[in-house]
């Protein structure tokens, strides 16, 4: 069964911005799914419709088979959401927030208290349980929202940039935490601008750009689509000019740093033996950018060139006449 199934989803905001232009998307039960896209692509809008914070203009959306038009309560009961922006009551304590949230899902207070304690401890918030939430640090607030989203033990957990502004150590521990939850059977949809995070955690991926799905694939297959990778080599001895390696694009960034572009049918052994032959010693090597990042940039750039006319509308939030007309018709149909 699909945890999330979306067909022909369109959203036109009241100000005329068409944030989603017909999205089709399936996320399988048990998946750890990355929903990526540049700022303003429509990720939060899509999540908003799935959690009924945003009304849809056209199309259908169902969660574990419950269509939100026909079985809204059942659909919502399956979901836990960590929103992009902090949205708990700053004057309530973390424990109160969690226990109340459970109550909104029909969970009795006794059970809710136990769960709250469990998650507060797991997310290292137990010490803060009775402090005013306003006094939590940014990273603590994020973790509180994760705990809150788990209170109803959702089958589908949706996280809208949960690690924004979280330090590296805590981010890593959040990754382990989310992996554990996913392994125990919860489907997770994650949006993030840290592509390394998506690459590490997620099995499937969709890239959304300008309100449309630009790419939908398994993470591993998508990464294979990357035809060339650029490596950065650090050298022991200074060079004054880039060495000539036939068939490779080589650039000298500074005296001690080389950039080499390697395509899929070439290999690294070959490069290293040639460099050795030239007496060049390599101390270390890394990818210039994360591989997913490379794919992402290419897809999004391609999209931006193809839809230059769209940019002003997307950027300013003010409707361009033609696009608005199209959006409005989409809305009526």
């Amino acid at each position: 069964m699909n945890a999330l199934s979306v067909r022909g989803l369109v959203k036109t905001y009241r100000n005329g911005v068409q944030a989603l232009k017909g999205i089709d998307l399936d996320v399988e039960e048990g998946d750890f799914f990355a929903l990526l896209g540049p700022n303003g692509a429509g990720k939060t809008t899509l999540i908003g419709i799935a959690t009924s914070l945003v009304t849809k203009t056209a199309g259908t959306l169902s969660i574990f088979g419950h269509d939100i038009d026909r079985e809204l309560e059942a659909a919502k009961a399956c979901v836990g959401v960590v929103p992009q922006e902090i949205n708990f009551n700053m004057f309530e304590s973390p424990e109160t927030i969690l226990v109340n949230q459970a109550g909104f899902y029909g969970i009795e207070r006794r059970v809710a208290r136990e769960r709250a304690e469990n998650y507060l401890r797991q997310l290292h918030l137990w010490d803060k349980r009775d402090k005013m939430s306003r006094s939590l640090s940014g990273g603590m607030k994020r973790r509180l929202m994760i705990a809150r989203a788990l209170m109803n033990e959702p089958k589908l957990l949706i996280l809208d940039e949960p690690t924004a502004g979280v330090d590296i150590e805590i981010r890593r521990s959040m990754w382990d935490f989310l992996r554990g939850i996913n392994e125990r059977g919860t489907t997770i949809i994650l949006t993030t601008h840290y592509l390394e995070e998506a690459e590490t955690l997620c099995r499937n991926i969709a890239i959304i750009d300008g309100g449309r799905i630009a790419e939908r694939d398994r993470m591993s297959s998508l990464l294979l689509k990357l035809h060339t990778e650029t490596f950065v080599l650090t050298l022991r001895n200074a060079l004054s000019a880039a060495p000539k390696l036939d068939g490779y694009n080589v650039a000298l960034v500074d005296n001690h740093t080389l950039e080499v572009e390697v395509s899929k049918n070439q290999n690294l052994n070959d490069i290293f033996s040639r460099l050795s032959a030239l007496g060049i010693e390599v101390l270390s090597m890394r990818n210039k950018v994360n591989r997913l990042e490379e794919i992402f940039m290419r897809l999004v750039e391609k999209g931006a060139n193809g839809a230059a006319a769209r940019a002003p509308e997307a950027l300013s939030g003010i409707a361009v006449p033609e696009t608005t007309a199209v959006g409005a018709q989409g809305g009526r149909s």
Partner: protein
Amino acid sequence: MNTASVTTSAAPSLDLTRIRWVGYKTIVIREYGRIIRIWGQTLVPSAVTATLYFVIFGSLIGRRVGDMGGFSYMQYIAPGLIMMSVITNSYANVVSSFFGAKFGKHIEELLVSPLPNWVIVAGYVTGGMLRGLMVGGVVTLVSVLFTDMQVHHLFIILAAVLLTSLVFSLGGFINAVFAKNFDQVNWVPSFILTPLTYFGGVFYSVSLLPQWAQKLSYANPILYMVNAFRYGFLGVSDVPLRLAFAIMVVAAIAMFALCVGMLNRGTGTRE
């Protein structure tokens, strides 16, 4: 779409009635917690105001006013002052709590939950009624210090106070849905509610007014509520009781439907 058949067979495990009941209780508990947490803003001011009214109007000026409707002025205004505090506090609680939830975005906690909108409205409105009745109770205690309170008809007292606080809690909810900033939260109470209450027979019997002012007064819904309530204590009323209760019941039903309808459409809450 064969998934649909799978889900309908799995659906019975979801007990919607229980979710709604627990969810409703949770909203009420949270609203109660809010009233208690900020008691200096929620419970105290009306008690102070009412005491001032009793001292100034009841004792100092009231002695010169003489009888009103066959009772001492203090006895006459006591039900009116209780009602005034119920009206103000029921309204204020819901408008500030629900608007605060919109403003602080924590209304989203409820909007993403499986609770249907009528449960959300019911929860907030119960919270408003709770505060209205708590403050009404405090003011009643204060009035007992100043005058003899008699009870003519307990059932009418309770019915009138419950319906009134229901109506004004709903009013506060409607205000909060439309409000876009804190000015719009204060506007209705200052410019509509307070004048209507003052002209709603709290301090005088409309029979003292000239003909035209009496006619005008009968268009004021608060007049009916105050008089029904006063009838419960003193057995006197400027308006027919049946009409008073009919107005309150119809208003409550219409306003509840309006609140739920607005939330269903997403007015003021969903993009």
